[in-house]
Each structure stands twice: as C-alpha cells, then as structure tokens.
C-alpha cells in the first residue's frame, strides 16, 4: 500500500507500548453501528491503484482535454495564456517551498516569509499602492473582501459595481455579501465606448450613501476606463475607489496608485501561473496603509531578533480569525502562498524590462488582431473605447458555431459575451497575449474567414455605406449585412 511509513513490526511494538492488542481497540469509543456502516461503505470505494496504473489513467483523462500547449489560445476573460520562463516552475516546484507549512513559526520559515515580503514589496511597486497583503484566494473573492472592507471603513452599505466588470466577479461579490447589510447597485456601460456610463455614475453618487465605487481597468471587454475621472467623482462623493486591475497590464498602464485608488485588487494569474482550469488563482489585495487594520488575510512584516539580525514574521494577527474569532476582519485562514511564490519568481525573472515587454507585446498583438478580424465581412468591433489586450467583435453567425469551427483547427476561443450579456448576443471576446505570433493571428483570421458565410465579392458590385451596411455575394446570392452585424438577409 502507498505512503505508509510503519512496518507490521513497528505497529506491533507501538501497540505494546500503548498497552492494547490491536489498532482496532483505539477506535472502541466510536459506536459499533457507525463503524460497521463505514467499513461496508469503504469496501465499495473505487481506487487502490498502483502508481503505474493510476498515472496512466490520469494521463488518459488529461488527453481528453484540449490544451494551450498544442492548441492556440485566443480565450481570455480573466485567465490568460502568457509565456512563463522555465526557471519559474523549476524553482517554484522545489519541495521545500511546495511542502512547507504556513509560516506561523517565524524562525523555521524565513525562506517562505522573505518570499512573501518580496511579493508584497513587488506588488506595492507594480501598483503604486502603499501596502499589499500575502494574497487571497482569487480576484473575485478579493473584490468581495474589498467591498466588505469599504463597508467597515465607511459604515455605508451601498456599493456601485459596473456592469462592464467581469460577470464572475459580480457573481462572487453578490454571494459573499448576501448575509451582510451590503447592497450592490449596477452601473451600466456606454454601449458605444464600452466604458462606464459617466452620467449614470454621477447620478448614482448623488445620494451620498455610497461606500465604494468599483472600476475595472481594463474592464471585461478589454476596454480602458477614464479611471482618474471616476476616482475624482468617487472621492468627491465621499466614497472609496476600488480598482480592479490586470497585474501584467501594469507593465504599460498607469497603476491604480496613480489615480488614488483606496483599494486595488486583481487576480495574479497573469504573473506566471498556469491556467489549470481556472484554479488555483491568486487574489491580489492592495490598499492604503490607513486601512491596514481592516485588511483581510495574512501580512508579513519586517523585524529583528535580539541580536538585531533582520528577519520576517507574520504580523497584525489581531485582525485574524484564530485570535479574533467572530470579530475578525475576514474568516480567511490561508493565502495562496505557493501561487504568490510563482508570481514573485516570475517578476524577478522577467525583471522590469520583461514585464514591460510582455505587457506591450500583448497590447500590440491584440491591436493587430482586432484590425485583421474587422477586415472580414460582417465582423465589426463592438466598442470604440481604447483597448488593452482583449476586444469584442460582433459576428455574423452564432459565436458557438464559430467556436466549433475554430476548434477544428486547434484554436481555443473566443468567449461568447452573449452568455452573460443578452444585449451583446453575437459578440465574441478575443484575447492576445505576447505568446500569439503574427502567424497565429493570421491563421485565426483565415480560419474565421472560412467559417463565415463565404462571400464572393464581385469587383465593384459591393461596398458598404457610411453605417457599415452593405452587401457581398455568396455563390451568386447577395448577402446584405447591417452594421450591427447581427441582421442578415439573403436575396435569392
């Protein structure tokens, strides 16, 4: 049997020391009926495989998944296929890091603690924020924690959350706050630009009862908001600004500290973490230092020993559940330490220039892809606002149909925005990271083109009007398309 360290002889000797005849006797305090039921149920449990057999079974399960190492991924929407230097996983998979316990005992955990201190420090620099914690579960739960902090800090209950924020984040924030006196109001997006509807935000802030305004930079559509203007309106109304950012994008975009965010949260997956079907992710939580005692999660601080030697320790534990129980700032009792380690090594390896380059390349590749895709008949950009590395286009056929056609050619994506936004039915969200080569993007364009109703454009016989409406000919049948790219009709 696997993973046992006692031999039968050891067991005998230990039983003798204890003074019992069998290990069974050690369970005599459990009612017999319970023991019998459990024994019977476990006799029918699957498993008990050899390592060799099980590894093969698991490899066969893995083979049932299409994955981004051999396919080409244009899917984003919160999880991104970035390049990760080989040194990152080599270092992060060291058993000393992987199998270490939470560093409550500081003297035996200086390695883990220094890594977290470096992680917090790198995040402060990347975001321009005053402090960062040792990480939370993921971006969505980090947002929920930020809203709960805003409630505790302002004693106000109303949160303004943009509709252009990730639907997953909004869903988790609602789940987290359902038992608390917090209400979440949605701010619509401008259907032309894709940005927060500024007028609607101003209107919602008028009542003066808002605890926090959330701004996603970039938002779920890949569109960049006018964050400084939103920050100003928010602060003028006495509310806190909670910024949701993409950490790697900060290689090129102004950081949340520069527009005076009070709390800045994100998922850190883009900092070197594999996609792993979405989890584990890495919740990043940064804030102004005046909120340190309201912040959730672990914090590592610098200190000294009696000799004055520098060392690191968990700190401000008076906020946490193991001390404060029901009065704790959060019930969280872990951090994503191993994922924070990955992000730290990623940033250390890439360095300032590498981080900047990955962010810059992602932007340029997405801009190129957006330009290429909109040359296709019926494919139109949905939003006019400035974009980072994702963009929405409307397609003349169902997004699901396109997805299937792309899958045939080993392309993963795009994301069907109609799943979460009925008003964006037919719109698809594409993402490009620095990993997508020009060749990849040209191939996507070619495959997408082939999947669209095949136009046979007769010279001079087609064109589009100022609204983008027009017609092409498909094997002798004129196909007319309208600018919203959802209305198609055929002339037989």
């Amino acid at each position, binding site marked *: 049997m696997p993973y046992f360290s006692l031999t039968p002889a050891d067991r005998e000797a230990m039983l003798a020391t204890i003074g019992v005849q069998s290990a069974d006797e050690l369970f005599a305090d459990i009612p017999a009926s319970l023991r019998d039921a459990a024994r019977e149920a476990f006799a029918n449990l699957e498993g008990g495989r050899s390592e060799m057999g099980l590894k093969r079974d698991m490899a066969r399960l893995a083979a049932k998944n299409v994955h981004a190492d051999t396919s080409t991924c244009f899917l984003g929407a919160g999880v991104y296929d970035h390049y990760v230097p080989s040194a990152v996983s080599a270092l992060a998979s060291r058993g000393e890091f992987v199998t270490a316990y939470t560093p409550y005992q500081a003297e035996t955990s200086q390695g*883990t603690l220094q890594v977290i201190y470096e992680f917090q420090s790198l995040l402060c620099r990347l975001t321009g924020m005053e402090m960062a914690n040792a990480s939370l579960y993921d971006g969505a739960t980090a947002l929920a924690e930020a809203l709960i902090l805003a409630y505790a800090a302002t004693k106000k209950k109303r949160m303004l959350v943009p509709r252009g924020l990730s639907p997953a984040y909004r869903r988790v924030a609602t789940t987290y706050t359902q038992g608390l006196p917090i209400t979440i109001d949605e701010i619509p997006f401008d259907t032309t630009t894709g940005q927060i509807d500024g007028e609607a935000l101003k209107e919602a802030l008028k009542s003066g009862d808002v605890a926090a305004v959330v701004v996603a930079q970039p938002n779920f559509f890949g569109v960049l908001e006018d964050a400084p203007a939103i920050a100003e309106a928010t602060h003028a109304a006495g509310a806190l600004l909670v910024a949701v950012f993409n950490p790697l994008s900060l290689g090129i975009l102004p950081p949340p500290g520069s527009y005076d965010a009070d709390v800045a949260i994100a998922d850190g997956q883009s900092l070197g973490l594999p996609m792993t079907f979405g989890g584990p992710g890495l919740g990043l939580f940064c804030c102004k230092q005046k909120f340190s005692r309201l912040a959730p999660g672990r914090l590592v601080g610098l200190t000294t020993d009696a000799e004055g030697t520098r060392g690191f320790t968990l700190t401000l534990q008076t906020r946490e559940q193991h001390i404060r129980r029901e009065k704790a700032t959060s019930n969280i009792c872990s951090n994503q330490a191993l994922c924070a380690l990955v992000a730290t090594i990623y940033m250390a390896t890439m*360095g300032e220039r590498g981080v900047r380059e990955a962010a810059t390349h992602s932007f340029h590749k997405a801009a190129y892809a957006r330009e290429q895709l909109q040359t296709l008949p019926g494919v139109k950009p949905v939003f006019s606002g400035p974009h980072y590395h994702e963009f929405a286009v409307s397609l003349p056929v169902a997004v699901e149909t396109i997805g299937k056609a792309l899958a045939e050619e080993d392309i993963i994506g795009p994301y069907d925005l109609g799943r979460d936004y009925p008003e964006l039915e037919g719109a698809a969200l594409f993402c490009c990271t620095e990993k997508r080569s020009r060749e990849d993007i040209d191939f996507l364009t070619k495959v997408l083109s082939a999947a669209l109703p095949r136009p046979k454009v007769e010279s001079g016989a087609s064109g589009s009007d100022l609204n983008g409406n027009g017609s092409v000919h498909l094997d002798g049948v004129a196909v007319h398309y309208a600018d919203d790219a959802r209305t198609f009709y055929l002339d037989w």
Partner: protein
Amino acid sequence: MLNSPSLEPLLFELSDPGSASDYLPPLDVPEAPLPFATRAELDIPEVDEHSVVRHFTRLSQNTFSIDTHFYPLGSCTMKYNPKLNEAVAAMPGFASVHPLQAETTSQGWLEVLFRAQEVLAKIAGLDACTVQPLAGAQGEFCGLLMIRAYHNARGEADKRRRIVVPDSAHGTNPASAARCGYAVTTVKSNAEGGVDMDAMRAALKDDVAAVMITNPNTLGVFEAQIEELCTLAHENGALVYMDGANMNAILGQARPGDMGVDVMHYNVHKTFSTPHGGGGPGAGPVAVRSILEPFLPVPHVIQAESGEFAWDWDRPDAVGSLHGFRGNSGVILRALTYILRHGGEGLRQVSSDAVLSANYILARLKGTYETANPNGCKHECVLSASKLRSQYGVSAWDIAKRLPDYGFHAPTVYFPTIVKESMMIEPTETETKATLDAFCEAMLAIAEEAKNDPDLLHRAPLTMPVGRLDEANAAKCLNLCWTTPQAEEACESDGEPKREIAGAPTY
C-alpha cells in the same frame, strides 16, 4: 537596531538594471499607436537568471517543509505529499487548460471534478458534494450559506439568526458564521473537553440555525454523544455542521452522514495530502445531505445519460458562486489522485496508522507532560506544559522554540484554548517509528533542560538562521513593503523579542 541583514539579501538588494535575461522574441506585428498614457518606471528589480535561481534556491533551503522535517502540528495533518500528485497536476492536459473552454474540449477535467464530487460524498456518508470551495474556511462559509438558504426556503431565516459553537472550536467557525450575518453563541466544553450536552440543550433555542461541531474534537477525542447531539439539534429544527479538519482520524471508521451530520467540509490539504505550499492554496469541498443539495453553488458538474459531463448553471436555489471560475481544480485533482491511489482499504489504514502513531507519542510522553487525553486519543494528543511553567518558568512557547534545534517543527501551541499551556501533537500516518521515537526523545530531553537550564529554553532557538524574532515590534512598526532602508532603521527594537499577543494560539 539593525546589525546585520538577513541570511539571504532581498531581491531588491540584488538588482542591477539591465542584467535581466531575455525571454521573448522581437515584436512581429506592426506597433499600434498607444491610445493611453503609459507609465514611466515600474521600479521592479532586474536580476540575471542565474542569480534569481540562487536567490530562490537559498530561500527554499531556509525554510522547514514536510520534505525536510517532521511537523508534529496538531489540527494540521502534515502528512507526506506524494510526488505522483504533482506529476499528474503538471500534465499539460491539466495545467494548460482554460476554464472557459467548451465542455466538449474539457471532458477530462469535468470528469475529474465529477468523480471527486462523487467519492467525497461517499466518504462523508452524505448525498452530494461541491468541490468549488477554495479552503476549509470558505467551505464553512459555503455550508453556512446553504443552511441559511435552507431556513429561508422554509420561511424561517428571519427567526433562526444564531449559530452555536463549542468553545473548543477553531476560530474560523465563529468567523465564518459572522460572515453569513449570524450571531454566535459559544458553549462551554465539559470537563473532558467534549460537548457539554446540558449546556447544548440550554443553548438550542428556536432561534438557532445550526450547531457547528468538530469531530473528533480539537482535543483529539471522538464525541461519543454525536448521534444524540444531532437528534437534539434536528428536533429543534436546527441543522448540524461538521468541521472536517480532523477527518484523518476517522476515514473509513465512521462517516459524518451516518452520525446525523447534515453538512461538512474537508480540508484536502490535511486529509488528502495536497501540499500546504507555505500557506495555500488549499481546497474545502463541502458534502451535504439531500435536503441541502438544491443550494449547492454554481456551476455544479453533472453527467448526462450519454456519459458526457457538463456544467449545470440551472440551479435556481443555489447560494451563488465562491470562485471566479471552477474552484481550485488543480488541488482537487491532487486529492482525487491520492484517494484513487489508496482506495477504501488504504484510506482505512491511513486513519488506523494515524491514530496508532498519536497514541504511541501520548504513551511515551504522558509520564513527563500532563495530558488532556487520559483515556487515549484519536489522530492527535494534547499535552500541557503547565507543570514546567509553574516549576521552572518554561512555557509551551519555549518548548515550541526549542524543538527546531532538535530538528523538529514546533507542535501547535496554545490551542485548544481550553487547555493551559497546551501543545497539540499530530504525527500522521507517514512518519517512521524511528522519527516518532526521535521526536519523543527530544521532548523528554527538553523537559530535562527545563529543570537544568530554563534560560536556555527562553533563548531558543539557537541554531536557526535568526533568533527569536520581535513580533510585537513588527506590528508596531508595520514595514510590509521594501521601500528604503531608512524605513527599516527608523523602527528600533529594544532587543527583547516579544510576541504580538502573549499566549495566542499558534498552529
């Protein structure tokens, strides 16, 4: 005052602008005009790859781990983390899959999560399971949200505003209850550290939504009255939540569902060997009785008659979602691998050996240290240093700090809080008898040191890279980010390392 830097310099002290290696090819698309203002400096260090590798390798060598040391940490189940789990999780067919891919292109992943749901429900003796919760604490939160939804569906949510928690419970129990908007009633334990049935009866009024129990409890004792307690709660209209932190003691020996428990969470990084990673990530699957099944979070994995797996979002009574995607799938994958490797008989041997090892340590040390387990224990034993404290001034904290000098991690100390100077010891099933013996010898030697040289114990550890650290000063000065060396020097310690909170539980 700072005399010397830490053993390994900070990354920021290694930085040499321009030294970072290249990883990306040149840009192969035309540069687009930037529609936004770009930022100036990031202030991220630049270090050559070889120095990065040395830096993190050295840091890794500067930390205890299961791969290098024995952790007798009570309530933490620090068992061996099999390398097979890591090899499986690293397969590109698992690691490089996007969570929003079409179901047809992620059947392998869906099957993993579905089979985990199924087997974890069976192990609990319950009807259904969600693998979405991200850690034990979030599992508690999820379970309590389902309890709240259950009472709400019966029109009793406004009436049942209270959760009853024994005083021996982990701090997360009351903290999670508060996150659901519940008030918490704490019930004192009886003299043996178990649930006091009279106190429980008195607390179980009609405003109680649920009782949260831990079984075996935090003294490592099986709650013999568990069935009676569940019946009592149910008669009152309340549900029973079980904290599954101590499942390693009863795998295949007793199932929570059979006891009458309605909902429980697992800590897969304890029971099912997934790595602690220095503090996470974990996963906290939640198993429930059928009455709570409608409230499981979305999306849930289902299997169609065709055999295909799918995401079920159409669950109108669901409590919502606890993660941006599908939970810590990579952790669940490791746990499933572990369960399949063991099978039912293997898992029964796990609890058997874990309990045997804990009782062996108890038998060897109970003559020297007082114990809260006069009648034996399950997977962990609770010893006390109160005699050493009163006779020689040596505390559980001193013992915790001395053990690393003998090559062992500290036990959990000052928890459970109901035992003075408590030291909670959980050896797990994956330590050799030789290791258990060496640990016991160290504990006995430290008791001798307490008599002969108590000051030595106050100064311990003596062989670690740093001496006992000043936690109180860390909290006072609060340096969380490396900005300038001046910030560090501004915060002077008086040279007497103190804890942030004396006597606080430390796991």
